[in-house]
């Protein structure tokens, strides 16, 4: 039997332990979120800072009022002007396509790594992470050199005689997809690899022994078991890809419409911080809420 004092101490310890992630969440997510939310309901102004406060003391006929002005127009603009919905839809589409492509590229790589002898794996992991030692921006610039009309790729294809005219890839959506897939590939490979590495190889042998061809065993055993890794990888690629700004800016063409770019326009060119904040909030709600909901369903599914 534990003494009451000891129990209390344990309870306090547990509270602290749980409290740390919550404090983290509060400080680095909830607080900024609240600030942006407040901003999204204020009115833009030519001032420093370029918006009006939403809470003000107002004196009227000698009486003091606490006036709260919430500008809903920012959100109405989002819905009213098709641009924002279109940008959002286009971002989702590009991010989803890139995620699927990244998955298709990453899975065989992760599988190959996981099947390698354990002593080789650290080197392969290092190789996957090696690009991170170079600045992200430089790597995207490098892709411009590869993809441009007289770039490496076209030179190669022309030399091989596969094409007769240079392909226009740079400044198209294809280039954006290539850029996103390349940049986020490690985020897809690593969680899938971490998952596959833990798979018991005898499971596949058992499946084969029970009458599966290896390809069927792959689909029925490896893929379902890799689901948590695949999901983690997809979220790690999809979420930042939706808000991606640099890659479409550098590799994309004039008609590549993405929400990150729209937000940039509102924030910098229009100096409309409130509307930019509204875009950010809407993006968060449209993206994070369904994901949280989805993960919650997943968790419930596991319990059952």
């Amino acid at each position, binding site marked *: 039997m534990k003494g009451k004092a000891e129990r209390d101490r344990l309870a306090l310890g547990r509270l602290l332990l749980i409290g740390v992630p919550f404090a983290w969440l509060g400080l680095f997510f909830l607080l900024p979120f609240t600030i942006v939310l407040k901003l999204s309901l204020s009115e833009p102004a030519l001032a420093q800072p370029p918006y009006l406060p939403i809470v003000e003391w107002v004196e009227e006929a000698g009486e003091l009022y606490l006036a709260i002005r919430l500008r809903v127009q920012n959100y109405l603009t989002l819905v009213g002007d098709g641009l924002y919905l279109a940008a959002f839809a286009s971002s989702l589409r590009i991010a989803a396509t890139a995620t699927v492509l990244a998955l298709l590229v990453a899975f065989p790589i992760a599988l190959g790594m996981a099947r390698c002898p354990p002593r080789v794996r650290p080197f392969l992991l290092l190789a996957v992470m090696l690009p991170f030692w170079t600045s992200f921006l430089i790597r995207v610039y490098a892709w411009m050199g590869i993809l441009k009309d007289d770039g490496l790729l076209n030179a190669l294809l022309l030399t091989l005689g596969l094409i007769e005219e240079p392909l226009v890839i740079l400044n198209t959506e294809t280039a954006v997809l290539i850029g996103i897939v390349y940049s986020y590939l490690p985020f897809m490979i690593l969680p899938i690899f971490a998952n596959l590495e833990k798979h018991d190889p005898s499971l596949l042998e058992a499946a084969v*022994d*029970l009458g599966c061809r290896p390809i069927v065993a792959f689909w029925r055993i490896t893929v379902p078991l890799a689901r948590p890794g695949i999901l983690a990888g997809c979220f790690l690629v999809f979420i930042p890809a939706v808000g991606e700004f640099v890659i479409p800016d550098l590799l994309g063409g004039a008609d590549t419409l993405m929400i990150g770019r729209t937000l940039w326009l509102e924030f910098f060119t229009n100096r409309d911080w409130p509307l930019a904040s509204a875009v950010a909030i809407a993006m968060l709600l449209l993206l994070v809420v369904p994901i949280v909901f989805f993960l919650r369903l997943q968790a419930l599914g596991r319990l059952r």
Partner: protein
Amino acid sequence: MTTARPVREARPRIEPWQDPDAVPFVRIQGVTKTFGEVYAVDNVTLDIFKGEFFALLGPSGCGKSTLLRILAGLERPTSGRVLIDGQDMTDVPPWRRPVNMMFQSYALFPHLSVRKNIAFGLEQERLPRAEIAERVAEVVRLVHLEGLEDRKPDQLSGGQKQRVALARALVKRPKVLLLDEPLGALDKKLRDQTQLELVNIQDRLGLTFVIVTHDQEEAMTVGSRMAIMREGQIAQIGTPSEIYEYPASRFVAEFVGEVNLIEARFASVNGTTMRVRAPALGIEIVTDRPVPALPGEPLWVAVRPEKMSIAKTPPAETGYNCVEGEVFDIEYLGDVSVYHVRLDNGLFLRATEANKLRLIERPITWEDRVWLSWGPDASVVLKT
């Protein structure tokens, strides 16, 4: 473990290997498997008959698991052939073999329920749903898994997992069921019980089982015959009693059960009686199983400790199969006691006696002067 458990003879046994006309069901012919420079399996030839519960026994690394995986098709032999039911299986991939395996780790699919795990193999055969359900239900009853069908593997105990693994392989109605250390993860009591269950199931279904184990007791309990393997080769094949009573080499004698090994030299053979001299003991040893040998050839005599009698008075005949010494130590193991006797020349021999009397009434104690003796039928002469 000081004594091997008596071989269970509860059921009448057919002994096809005694029948010169019987056709072996599984034939392993000159199979060799190398991993780089290492010979995991070295030119093994082995016949297993229909309905046998065949045990592959040996220390770890002896190649028994590799041999089993060759049967399953999970490893390709470097050379040699494997035939099952008359068909050459050497080039048949595992998914087409009429063979199923129960893995040491059970290899249950963690994302599938018990029911789905068991049905997995049948779904690959594209059987009608109703038939799958029926056969799954049947095998679930057989291994007593009723009520657990919807659980996931991580919600099962070790014994339950073991039974799911068994059911998953059995439901395919394989011609040969392979079991790779199937009971290794269970505690002793559960293991003993499961061994008997396995035998009963095998008996009832009339299937051919091949089990790999490093536990000689298990091999002897379940096996109709067993093969002792050492360094990729088969050291001896036989029924458990044959192997226990008449080991073919010092390795087998020492690996299966406890044994006293005495160095000896060939003296003479007279009909069914063979005499050897044990210079270290200064006695002659008589056996009723002669082996061909040259005069003076170095031999070994194996005597099981439980076949040695221990007494404070010399036996009637002391000229052979009898040595004198002093009780150096007594191991009390409950059912039996092991007497470690130091001979006058410093050698040790062991004798086992059943504790028919209470400890307190035991007539022999430490530092007693004793005589160890055994019958001609208890001495086995070994050449290697």
